[in-house]
Each structure stands twice: as C-alpha cells, then as structure tokens.
C-alpha cells in the first residue's frame, strides 16, 4: 500500500529586539553570566506588570507581511497557564485566539519545483528561563537561568502542506531566510534562537488509512529536522504496513541514536486554561502604523533572486547563492554599482573568492574588502590590467586596509605587461632556457606549454598575462621551427 506523508511545522523564533518582551532588560543574553539580565518583571516577582515591546510587535507584523499573511487591526494577549520552574509567573503571556498575523503562505523551491506552504498564524509570546540539570557529589540539582525569560518569541504555525522531509527542510530554510532578511530573527538553530517542532502523519493514497498525528520535538538543526522526519516517516509506514496501531503522541528526536522515542504522554496532557491577559489592553494597529511598517519592508529573497537574474543576467545558481543572505545581495549590488557593470564577473568573484575566505557568508563585511574595492579589482582583471591571480592576491593582501586596489597595483608595479615586444622578449628567453620543454612540445606533447607559461609568469613576477604568453609562445613555436 502506498502512503502519502503529511507534515506541518510549528516554529519558534526569538525576535531581534534590544529589550525583552514585557520589560526593559536586554534581550541579548548569549554571552551574559546567568541571571544578570533580570528585573522584577521578568523574574515574575509579586506585584509586577508587563508592558508590550513595540519593536517586537513591529517585527512580528513585518514577519506576517513577509509570509503573505493578513494582519488583523486588533490583536490581544492571553495567559497560557502551566506550572514549571522555567516559567516565572506560572503562566506565559502569549496570544491565543487573536494573533498578530493569520492566513499566509510561503512559496518554497524544492528541486526546481515550487511548493506553496500555508501559514496558519504568527503570534508573539515570551521565552522561558533556561534550566540546566546537573548531578554532583551533593546529588542532582536543576539550575535556573532567567536571562532568557521574557525574550520575545514568535510562533509561526504552518498548515500541514508538506509531503516529504525534504520539503519540510526547504520550508524551514525559506522561512529562516525571510526572517533574517527582515531582521526579525537571527534564525540561529544551534543557539536555540530558532526552533522547530513537527507534526507528521501518514495517509494511504486510496484514503482508506489515515494515521494519527505524531508531534516530534528536540530537533536542533536543519539536518536533524530532515533526519528525524525521515526516521519518523519510515517508522510510521512500517507500523501501518505491519498492521500495528500508531498512537497520537509526542516523540523526542534523539540525535546520537538517530531515533524518535515516545515521551510520557501524561506530562503533555495539558489544559492551558487560556484567558485574556487582564494586565494588557488589546493592541489596535492603525493604518498609519501598518503603512509605516510596510514602508520599511525590504525586498524579499525570492523577489530579489528573480531580479538579480533578470537585471544582471545571472544564472539561477548564482542568483540563488547571492540572494540567500540579504547582506550578500546588498554587497553584490553595491559592488556592481561601483564597478558600473561586470555583473556576472562580480557574481563569480563574490560566490567564489569571497565566500572562500569569509568565515561566515552572512558576514562578508568581516573579510575587510568593501564592495568598492572588489569593484576595482574585478574591473582591473576584466580590463586585463592585472591578471586573475593578482586579483585574488589583492583580496587577501588588502583585507582590512584602506588602500585602494588600483593605488596598490600602481605602487607595487603589478600591472600586466601588455607590450607585445616585452612579452616576446620574455618568451624568447624562456624558450632558450628550456630546450627540453620546447622539444617535448614540438614532438606533440602540447601540455608542455603550461610549464613554459609558468616560467614566463615567474620571470614577469606577477605582471604577466598568461593568455598573452600563450599566444606569443604558440605563435613562435608553431611557426618558427628554426629556434
């Protein structure tokens, strides 16, 4: 029997804001010692009240717009009640029935196919404290770090529109890319700033069997999402084919064993007893606010990728690579503008040379080569003023300095010697000094020319042009048998 996989994802993204969701504490806690970014409000002390972080609302609205959602003019906050030591107040201030954004979609490219995944809703809530469990000589203990408590958290819920682990992974990547583009979240999964839970089920293609929905948690990377889902699909299909009963449950992905295991269902049988948060009035988003947010929306990844292709004549692959990160695309376009053209060449230099030396693609700025410098280098290479090798060396030599590449080339005499007589002189010297290689070439071992060109380049100390050397050499070797 054939089965179809049905996957829906629930994403949590920490919102990039200076302060926390309901208080003034700093929201960037990753390098902070435990319990230093805390105040009575995020500690949930008696008597405190929350205040909504406007920037978090703005970024969630931006996310909603970017995910093609409608933004209701009215949203409100609710209390989600459950007791756990990571939840300071015994309830989480979240949004239940009236979230910030609803009914959107994301178009995702999966192996050249376009898949549209519906977005059910995007709402805003607060992150919990972080618990660390330790055992030592004095027994087991749990430590609470409240720095994370109250950090703005966006929840993005998809429709069950994905039909393979690969689609789920691509959806996840696409959403992350969008969040990073609009500056709503770092999207960093390893640091826990971006998290993913999945609901997976199977349906037989004839519709006779509909398997129960299983929720998968503890997936901490894009790869583990795909692996966990692949495992779960296989597990569910095998069970259904063998006539075993599957139960609706929550299962945790164990990365090291590469399996999912059922979590005790009792712990998850929550009744959250949602009710409107009486400490916060409902949020009314007026037209002016929405227009202001709309006006700050950057061009989104898919649109930009298409424009890069069309405007600069780039290949699909280059456009995709450049559009993956907003910072890269911005860098690329700045370089093309500075160079006044050479769009394809600059694309190759960015995706080739710069990516090779940048530690992180999203931080091209750290390489220390401003787009104007790359524009000069590529322009000189294209014009034959320097050779490609020199161009590459300039990238590393000039990294972090404020010397212009053109000035540096002039100062160090790196400009290519293009004077035909000078080249001919060097070629004649090389041919004279390497009779064996010349003989090899003439006897049909044409590859020997590579060695001879290399010798020419050495003599010219980087100012040589390999094409000019090759042309002159073949010209002499093929026509002048006397030498």
């Amino acid at each position: 029997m054939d089965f179809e996989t049905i996957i829906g994802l629930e994403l949590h993204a920490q919102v990039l804001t200076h302060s926390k969701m309901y208080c003034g504490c700093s929201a960037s806690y990753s390098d902070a010692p435990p319990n230093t970014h805390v105040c009575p409000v995020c500690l949930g002390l008696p008597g405190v009240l929350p205040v909504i972080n406007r920037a978090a609302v703005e970024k969630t609205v931006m996310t909603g717009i970017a995910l093609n959602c409608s933004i209701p003019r009215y949203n409100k906050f609710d209390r989600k009640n459950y007791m756990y030591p990571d939840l300071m107040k015994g309830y989480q201030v979240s949004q239940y029935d009236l979230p910030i954004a609803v009914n959107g979609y994301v178009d995702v490219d999966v192996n050249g196919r376009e898949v549209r995944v519906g977005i059910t809703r995007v709402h805003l809530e607060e992150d919990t404290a972080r618990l660390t469990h330790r055992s030592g000589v004095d027994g087991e203990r749990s430590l609470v770090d409240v720095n994370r408590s109250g950090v703005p958290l966006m929840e993005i819920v998809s429709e069950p529109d994905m039909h393979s682990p690969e689609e789920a992974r691509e959806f996840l990547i696409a959403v992350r890319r969008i969040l990073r583009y609009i500056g709503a979240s770092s999207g960093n999964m390893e640091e826990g700033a971006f998290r993913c839970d999945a609901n997976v089920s199977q349906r037989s293609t004839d519709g006779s069997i509909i398997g129960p929905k299983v929720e998968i948690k503890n997936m901490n990377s894009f790869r583990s999402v795909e692996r966990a889902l692949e495992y779960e699909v296989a597990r569910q299909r095998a069970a259904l084919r063998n006539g075993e009963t599957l139960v609706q449950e929550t299962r945790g992905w164990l990365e090291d064993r590469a399996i999912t295991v059922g979590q005790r269902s009792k712990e998850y049988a929550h009744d959250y007893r949602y009710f409107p948060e009486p400490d916060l009035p409902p949020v009314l988003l007026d037209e002016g606010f929405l227009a202001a947010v709309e006006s700050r929306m950057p061009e989104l990844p898919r649109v930009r990728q298409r424009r890069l292709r069309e405007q600069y004549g780039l290949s699909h692959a280059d456009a995709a690579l450049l559009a993956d990160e907003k910072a890269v695309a911005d860098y690329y376009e700045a370089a093309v503008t500075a160079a006044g053209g050479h769009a394809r060449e600059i694309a190759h230099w960015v995706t080739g040379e710069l990516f090779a030396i940048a530690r992180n693609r999203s931080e091209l700025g750290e390489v220390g080569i401003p787009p104007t410098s790359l524009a000069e280098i590529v322009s000189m290479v294209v014009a034959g003023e320097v050779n490609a090798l020199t161009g590459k060396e300039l990238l590393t030599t000039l990294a972090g300095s404020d010397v212009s590449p053109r000035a540096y080339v002039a100062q160090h005499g790196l400009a290519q010697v293009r004077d035909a007589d000078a080249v001919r002189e060097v070629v004649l010297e090389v041919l004279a000094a390497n009779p064996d290689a010349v003989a090899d070439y003439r006897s049909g071992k044409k590859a020997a020319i590579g060695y001879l060109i290399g010798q020419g380049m050495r003599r010219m100390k980087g100012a040589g042009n390999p094409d000019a050397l090759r042309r002159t050499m073949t010209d002499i070797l093929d026509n002048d048998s006397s030498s």
Partner: protein
Amino acid sequence: MTHIGATTEMVVPVDLSLAEARRLLDKRELSAVELAEAHIARIEQVEPVVQAFITPMFEQAREMAAAADETIAAGEARPMTGIPVGLKDIFCTVDAPTTAASKILAGYRSPYDGTVVERLRADKAVFVGKLNTDEFAMGSSTENSAFFTTRNPWDPTRVPGGSSGGSAAAVAAGQAIATLGSDTGGSIRQPAGFCGVVGLKPTYGRVSRFGLIAFASSLDQIGPFTRSVEDCAMILGAIAGHDPRDSTSAPLPVPDYAAGLTGSVRGMRIGIAREFSAVEGMEPGVQAACEAAYETFAKLGATLVPVELPYSKYALPTYYITAPAEASANLARYDGVKYGLSSEAETLLETYLRTRGEGFGPEVKRRIMLGTYSLASGYYDAYYVKAQKVRTLIKRDFDRAFEQVDVILAPTSPTVAFPIGARTDDPLQMYLADIFTIPANMAGLPGIAIPCGFSDGLPVSLQIIGRAFDEATVLRAAHAYEQASGWHTYRPDIARLVAR
C-alpha cells in the same frame, strides 16, 4: 522643640485631619517627627486591641519624619510631606516585608517599591507600617489573614471589614492620618464603612497597580482611607496618574481634586437605584440611615432621579467567576521555587503541592479551585466567557444611568460590622457583604464610602458611584454631604477601647 500654640491650645496630633496636619506642618507649629511620634504612641496604645499592623515601621517612620522636616524647612513640602501613612500589606516596599497576609510570603522582601509607594516616598510621606488584610485581599473581614484578625475600633468583638480591614481600622483608631488599601470587590469601601471612615475606590486605571500584589488584575484598584473627604482628595492627587509600567493605567491628566470641593451639590442629578435597596439581609437601620442621606442630598439642592441597573443583581456571581479565574493565574507564581515559603520534597510536583498546601489558607485555595475550574477546557465558555458578557451588560446599565445622572447613591454594605466569627463558616454569607460594592468594580467605576450615621451604635456608610474618571464629581458630592451632615466627626472612644 516646642511649637507655637501648644500652650494655648491642646493639639492632639492623632485626631488631626490630613488638611489640618498639613497646615500645622507648613506653619511649623508641629514637626513631622512630633506627628510621627504621636502616631507611634497611639499605635502602641491601641494595637494590643485593634491589631491592625502586620509590620510596624517605627524606625523607618522616625527617619522619614526627620527627612520630611528637612523638606518642610526647605520650603519644598508637598501635600503628603510628613503625613503618617499606613500601607495595606500587599503594597511592595523595599524597607519592610510584604506578606499579603499569607504564610506563603511570610518575611518576603520586595527588591522594589511599587509606584504609589514610590510616589508617596518621593513626596516624603511617613510610613508607619504595613497593615493587615485578608490573605491576598480575599475576604471581607480580615479573618482570612494567615496571621490574626483585626478588630473594629468601634467594637472589638466585631470585624473591621475587609479585605483592607487593617487600613480602615488604623485610620478609625488614629494610628495613621491616612492609609492605602486595594479594592477588588469592595475591599476599600466595605471596611471604610464598617469602621466609619472615608474610603475611595478610584476608577480602574486611575492609580497604577505596579507593585500591588495582584488578586484579580482586571478589578484591583488602589485607593485611600481617610477621616474626611478633603483628606481623601489630597492623597488621591498624590497617588493618581499614568504610569508607563502599568499598561492599564490611563494616560489622563489628574485634576486638583481638593480644589474641586465646592461644598455644593445644587443642581446635581443623583441616581437612586431600586436594585440597591431591597436585598435579602438588608438591615433596617442601614436602610434608614441611607434613605436619610438621600433626603439630605435633596435638601442640599440636588435632584434625586430613580435609575435602573437591572444587571447589577448578576454582579456578585459574575464577580465570583471573574476574580477567582484571574486569581488562579496570579497566584501560580507562588510555587516554592523562587521566593517565599518552600516546603522540602522529593519531587517537583511534591514541592508544589506541599508548598501551596501549607502556604495558602482555605479561602485562597477555594478561589484558586473556583478559578481553575471556570477556566478549564469545556467550562470556559459557560463560565468565564459568559461572565465577561454579563460584565459588559452591567457596564451598559451604568452607562445608560449616567446619561441621566451625575452620581448614583447606594448603601456601601447591607449591614453594619458583623461579629468576629459570625460568617466564617458560610462563605456565601461572607460574599454577600460586598453585594453593593461589586457592581462598581465590574464596571470599573469610582466609588466612595462615607459615614452616614449609626445603627445599633455602629457606623453606617453611604456609597457614591460616579462616571469613569470623574472622581472629582464623586468627591464634590461626598464633601458637600459630609459638611452638611457632620457624621465624619464621630470617632470611636479610644479610652474605652483600650480599657476593655
């Protein structure tokens, strides 16, 4: 230090009104330190009987009074500078424990001052102590305090009302010139009535709740207890106003309430609602005193207009869905993990169960259970949602009434102070003590309780309810009545109280 006038005229600082004390302090005829010492002496004298204070703050009071004297000497006095003030023990204060009269917070120290405390401190008011209340403000008699029951200074065998019973009794017994309480369903007005003092619940949103330990967030409101309406206006002006830390506080200007006390209600239209008279258990003495008060208003030139508030009879049941629901969430933070009582146990669940089992009293547990139940999946629509709809209807009744009248009069409570222990076995009887005060909470409206006579030797109280954010009119009506009737000048017999 001597003060002018002391030889010719006996100044009894504990009997001063806030306005009189202000005048004497500003004229340097009385120092803040003297005023504080007089109140400390009174507290020491009557406290064995009254038991209004959970934590006296004598040392702090002396320091604050000394500082207040410097401010006065520098000519920088504000209305509350040097005035002895008591705080209900659910106001977070850095310099004294904040317990909410609960075992679960016994000895708890807040690392911050709430907004009203901060404002009074900035004005150099003098804090004399933290006052008894029903645990987490849940009750109508202070009998739910985990520590002790406060006695009514008019008759120590009777309750002072509640939950802010300590705040009401302290003002009645001269232990403070003014106190602050909180009113969720009547917790300022009802004890003010039982103790024969003035108590105001401002409009929801008029005074910041930041630093007030929450009972029911959509209903809680902070307000003052004083011995006169003018005093009430003065302290309200000091604590009211928008606070960016409380999103439900209104960004509206605060009028000069004291300046608005004209002494006249001539031409004012005053509503009398049938729903606020003929209830079961209404004492004839209370009914008679209130009706006499209505007549006084008519004699003063106001027009009495019958109004209808048909949904008010649902206010009590609606309140007992809404308030416990919010309380069930507000009290979830007391789990033995972070602060307060923590009962040792093997597992997390056991820690929760034992801490909360030992830390909360029976009424608090009852309300947590009520609230948890009405929010539970499957019951939510039938209880919580329905209650919110009724709440809207109650509000609409008032909106309609206030199209015709400027204020509405009602008894504060259907009875005078009842004997200690009389209602502790019957929560429903206890809940009925708030039947006339709850509607104003459900509608978010301001309401004041002022003395309007006696029944069987115990104070009867008149309630004046006004339009949202129109405390000025409420105070003006209350002040005119007070001046005409003089009921506020009656004080319990302290000598007899202490002799018992």
